[in-house]
């Protein structure tokens, strides 16, 4: 699946988007654990997920949401438009 990062999550990971193998990842939380293991930058980005929101296929969901059938997962801080 495609994993995307916005705002300071993009800056901390130094990545806009990357492909991640979703095999064995049932929920968003499982994905976050897998991402943390990728290295120091990812670990820093996900150090405090209370400040992180997630969208699966462009819908905001909770970290317990299923990744079944997901093609695009995005991580970002709370929105500040307007």
């Amino acid at each position, binding site marked *: 699946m495609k994993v*995307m990062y*916005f*705002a*300071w999550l*993009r800056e901390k990971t130094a990545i806009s988007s990357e492909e991640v193998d979703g095999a064995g990842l049932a929920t968003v939380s499982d994905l976050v654990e897998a991402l943390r293991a990728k290295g120091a930058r990812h670990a820093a980005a996900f150090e405090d997920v209370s400040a992180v929101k997630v*969208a699966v296929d*462009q819908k*905001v969901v909770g970290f317990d949401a299923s990744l079944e059938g997901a093609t695009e997962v*995005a991580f*970002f*801080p*709370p*929105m*500040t*438009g*307007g």
Partner: protein
Amino acid sequence: MAVRVQEEDFDLGVEAAALRGSGDAGALVTFSGIVRGGEGDVAAMMLEHYPGMTEAALEEIEAEACARWDLSASLIIHRVGRLMPGENIMMVAAASRHRKAAFEAAEFLMDYLKTRAPFWKKEETPEGARWVDAREADDDAAARWAK
């Protein structure tokens, strides 16, 4: 009923005139968000968004407003990219037969846009750049529309 995400500026007067022409409205409310300068020492504002999801979210917010109020026209425009103090950031507009509906719909569009549309602001200041924090007051404002 329209949603636009763009780098270019827009003209409030032109947009308002177009909305008036598209229905028998007696009341038109507009909101403009503008980059503040001055005491805050903000030299520029960078606006990032999530292409695709942003448009879908704005369309959903607008559809929800049209379901709740009898609007003859509505509009959401949001700019992205680097904006200078005094420049337009965004606007919403709602036209209706009556002023109460137009005011409520415009406030609703703003409250939902603030909390549900994937935009992020970064301010450039003399001390460096900083991401704007989400405000709890915005969540509270959005929560009042829950039914």
